[in-house]
């Protein structure tokens, strides 16, 4: 699909301008894509094992919970968890990488020593202790996972978008504009030649008339 445009000098200038703009944009987008991919690999390295580690951890945690469940009644567990509940705030700092917003999560979840836990150890078993510990670790890992995974997902979608733009500029927009430019230049040349020839014809005619006189 080539746009039909008038073969005028004005139009030619416009198209030339568009071509320079498109090439500039193409270059910039290419750089953006490369920068994004660089960032992506950085994060990927970090996150590589977190998922699989977390899966194992959660499996352990689930079984620890099952054991704790066997030693304590559901009611007891609920009471303990209410006593142990604390405020967990997460600060989300947003880092901007090439227009992609990457969250950086900071949390102050720490494993607390006994006195500050809200329940008494005399009433509970070590299984419960184990279970709580496992889950605290899970929480900690899940937070890391959340950060990296979200970053990866966002970077990936942005990379995809940028890549598409780069390609469409490179393989569709710029060639199409080039084609148009060529077309107009050709038509303009043709017009010029046409004018030139008709001038010559007129001149010859005039000379012939003069010679006859």
């Amino acid at each position: 699909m080539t746009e039909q445009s008038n073969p005028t000098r004005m139009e030619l200038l416009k198209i030339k301008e568009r071509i320079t703009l498109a090439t500039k944009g193409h270059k910039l987008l290419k750089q953006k894509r490369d920068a994004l991919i660089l960032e992506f690999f950085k994060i990927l390295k970090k996150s590589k094992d977190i998922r699989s580690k977390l899966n194992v951890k959660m499996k352990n945690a689930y079984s620890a919970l099952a054991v704790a469940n066997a030693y304590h009644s559901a009611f007891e567990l609920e009471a303990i968890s209410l006593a142990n509940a604390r405020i967990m705030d997460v600060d989300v700092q947003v880092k901007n990488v090439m227009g992609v917003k990457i969250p950086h999560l900071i949390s102050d979840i720490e494993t607390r020593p006994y006195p500050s836990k809200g329940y008494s150890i005399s009433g509970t078993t070590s299984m419960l202790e184990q279970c709580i510990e496992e889950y605290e670790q899970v929480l900690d890992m899940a937070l890391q996972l959340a950060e990296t995974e979200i970053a990866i997902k966002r970077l990936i979608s942005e990379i995809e978008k940028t890549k598409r733009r780069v390609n469409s500029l490179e393989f569709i927009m710029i060639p199409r504009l080039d084609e148009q430019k060529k077309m107009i230049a050709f038509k303009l040349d043709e017009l010029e030649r046409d004018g030139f020839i008709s001038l010559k014809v007129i001149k010859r005619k005039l000379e012939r008339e003069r010679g006859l006189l």
Partner: protein
Amino acid sequence: MGDKKMVIGKIAVLGERHFTMGFMLAGVQNVFTVVEGNSEQKLIELIDSKQYSIIYINERLSEQMDWKLKKRISNLAYPVIVPLPDIKGESNEAANIKVLIKRALGFDIIAK
């Protein structure tokens, strides 16, 4: 690229009882135990309340959700919604990411 915003939010856990119990024990305050069927509604509620910065959800639940909601979740900048594995300890989430990477970069870099 120096704009750094700080948002402070809470952690929420959403899932069935066997999923949420452990998190409750670890001290998470905002735990929402749902029965099968009303998890979508609750999740939307949590997102719209804008109080939470991270929502952990049982992966099985998040997979069963309506595709519209799934799409919304994947496009969401805030809060961060993280599916965690169900009791079997397996997760498709890694595979999902693999597919995404393959689509964007053209090759599978995680596979060794």
